[in-house]
């Protein structure tokens, strides 16, 4: 009992500190700090938080069942109940319904202030990581908990370290592929496809856009381009930008933004540029470029070709008409015309739940045999609702 009093005193002091810093605190951090400041050692902690007034699914036998199940699953664990209540000592009667190691009453509403749904189940493992579990799913499924709480160490069959050099520092490689003993990947900021050779452990350039290619596949006046390039900005990368690439059987296909029209009036300091999008193909040292015929107002940044020569692209549109666009299917065999547009509506999501940040909604894609494509939706930012307590 004395231990409990000491812990409650710590909570009160810490809660005062939280109150004074709550405007700047990040939601999860505030709760993590709250738990860590209970100073309960390095044991696994199973924390169930409830609100005595607003807990709509506070089925106590179910909560107790989950509690016992978690405690049996997670070794060396300590169980804690946190009950939010406006009135001090109001929740002590509820405490007796649980067979728990520790009980705290929280009159400052740390959990509900952070928009967590009750009953909230939080695990702090002995590495000090916090895991927020879904209560309703937990009722029917507890087989995955052990994997989550006690994961195996990362095991690899083989590791190859890729050594960067001062000449070839890269950030996020795109579409890495190993073929014929080489690793190819797009270094987007460098606007180059780089090649890592496993034998000599060196990085070199596999493909860099050339000015000759811009001349060849553009309708622009060469004098204008020379003048533009001599001015030094925005530079060759902007004139021929690689957005993504695929490599197969010595055939390289690049999705590019290409300079197609340029009007320069230096006296009035006006420059107008048209960028056209298309596929630039390199095969047997022969280059070719096919321009997309429609929907040029959509931003492209990814693509994938399947065996039936369709292309799919994932990204949002650039204006209000197309901002919910996610993917385009291009019929390459029929004049490079897009014949299908997949939008957010096609995903049948409850859009009212989410912020309108489409680029976070669906991101990368895979490709399968035949005429199938696979897309993967990422985690979205939910609108958060703020509880107003009477």
């Amino acid at each position: 009992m004395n231990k409990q009093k000491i812990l409650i005193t710590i909570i009160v002091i810490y809660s005062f500190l939280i109150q004074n810093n709550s405007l700047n605190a990040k939601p999860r951090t505030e709760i993590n700090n709250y738990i860590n400041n209970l100073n309960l050692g390095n044991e696994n902690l199973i924390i169930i938080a409830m609100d005595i007034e607003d807990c709509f699914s506070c089925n106590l036998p179910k909560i107790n069942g989950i509690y016992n199940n978690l405690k049996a699953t997670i070794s060396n664990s300590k169980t804690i109940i946190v009950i939010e209540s406006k009135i001090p000592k109001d929740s002590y009667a509820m405490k007796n319904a649980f067979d728990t190691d520790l009980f705290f009453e929280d009159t400052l509403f740390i959990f509900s202030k952070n928009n967590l749904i009750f009953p909230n189940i939080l695990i702090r493992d002995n590495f000090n990581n916090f895991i927020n579990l879904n209560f309703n799913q937990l009722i029917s499924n507890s087989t995955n908990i052990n994997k989550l709480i006690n994961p195996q160490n990362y095991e690899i069959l083989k590791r190859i370290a890729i050594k960067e050099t001062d000449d070839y520092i890269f950030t996020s490689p795109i579409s890495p592929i190993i073929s014929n003993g080489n690793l190819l990947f797009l270094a987007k900021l460098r606007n180059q496809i780089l090649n890592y050779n496993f034998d000599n452990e060196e990085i070199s350039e596999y493909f860099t856009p050339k000015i000759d290619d811009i001349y060849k596949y553009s309708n622009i006046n060469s004098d204008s381009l020379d003048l533009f390039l001599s001015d030094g900005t925005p530079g060759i990368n902007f004139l021929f930008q690689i957005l993504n690439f695929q490599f197969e059987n010595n055939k390289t296909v690049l999705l590019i933004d290409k300079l197609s029209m340029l009007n320069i009036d230096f006296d009035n300091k006006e420059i107008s540029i048209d960028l056209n999008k298309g596929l630039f193909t390199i095969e047997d040292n022969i280059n070719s470029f096919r321009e997309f015929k429609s929907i040029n107002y959509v931003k492209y940044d990814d693509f994938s070709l399947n065996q039936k020569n369709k292309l799919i692209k994932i990204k949002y549109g650039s204006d209000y008409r197309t901002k919910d666009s996610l993917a385009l299917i291009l019929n390459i065999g029929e004049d490079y015309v897009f014949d299908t547009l997949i939008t957010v509506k096609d995903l049948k999501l409850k859009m009212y739940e989410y912020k309108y940040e489409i680029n976070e909604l669906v991101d990368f894609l895979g490709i399968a045999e035949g005429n199938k494509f696979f897309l993967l939706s990422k985690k979205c930012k939910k609108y958060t609702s703020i509880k107003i307590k009477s």
Partner: protein
Amino acid sequence: MQKIYKYQNKKLKSYNLTGVFNIYKDFDIKDMLIMDKKIYIVGLSDTKRILIQTYDFSGKLLKEEISYLNDDILLNTRFVKNDKNKLILMNKWRYKRWTLDYLQK
């Protein structure tokens, strides 16, 4: 919320990610790969846990493994396509920098 969508014959079908996603939503999905008629997904949580799941084309979970990254901080990861059908990740680590890690399928 996280789903796999299959586009075929101008129709879009969706499958919910299952397994650990049923109880825990905080794996940040980093990449997807199609290989051996299977769908591989890799996700990270707080740079400490890496999740690799395998689904078939009907959306059924075939395998999932969660590993603990105990000796470095993994900043990003991507699958590496390859002609040998091996499961390879190109990883960016805080201290080790870039590695190609060959994993058990």
